């Protein structure tokens, strides 16, 4: 088997290396950046919603786990 040289590989992959569609795999879906997390605001939110959440949990957990 003939080994491909670095120069030959560079030539062979030149078009692919310049192809943005091939190379965008790691950032395919554009992420919606959000604001940095504000824990104080989150805490207020959490405190207001504990009872609502647990009411919902009660009915969901009563179902048999499948």
């Amino acid at each position, binding site marked *: 088997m003939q080994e491909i040289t670095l120069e030959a590989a560079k030539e062979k992959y030149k078009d692919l290396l310049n192809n943005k569609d091939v190379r965008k795999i790691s*950032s395919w879906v554009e*992420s*919606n950046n959000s604001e940095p997390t504000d824990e104080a605001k*989150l805490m207020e939110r*959490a405190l207001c919603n504990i009872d609502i*959440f647990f009411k*919902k*949990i009660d009915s969901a*957990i009563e179902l048999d786990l*499948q």
Partner: protein
Amino acid sequence: MKYHYPDGCVKDPEYNNKTEDRIVSRVAFVENVYNAIKQKGYFCNSHINSALLLNAIESYYTDIHRTKCFHDITLSDEHKKAAFSIKWLIKFRPIQLSVTCDNGTITIKDILINEIFAIFIGLTLLDIDFNDLPNLSDKFLNNIFYTLHFREIDGMVLSTIMYLLQRGIKKEIP
């Protein structure tokens, strides 16, 4: 010879210095939420382990940081924040059932205590109105608990589930 870590590398001691305040702030938030839940009369037979909690939050930041680097993300979106928080809280299980707990009275809600807590933290991070939670079917929520308890969790896949969950709560088309 001093090794020079690449920019943003999670092994760089400078990275730890930069994120320590954020880690402590998030640990305090999660612990306060747990205490508030307990004060309301839920999770009575349990306590939170500080070492496991710190471990979970530190892993959350490391994991989300490497994800941001790989996917070229400046700030992670709410779905990733929720998903990765859930993932690490489930993995390290910082809420422990008390040794004094009567074995005969343990319920499924005690067994799923970390899953329930993690989902609450996750929902708090999402832009949703908790009053709209009834829009989510019990079946779907039940399936999420099953998945979190018995299956392997991938942060990015869970992030998509968080997106769908949010759209469902808002009664919006995915």
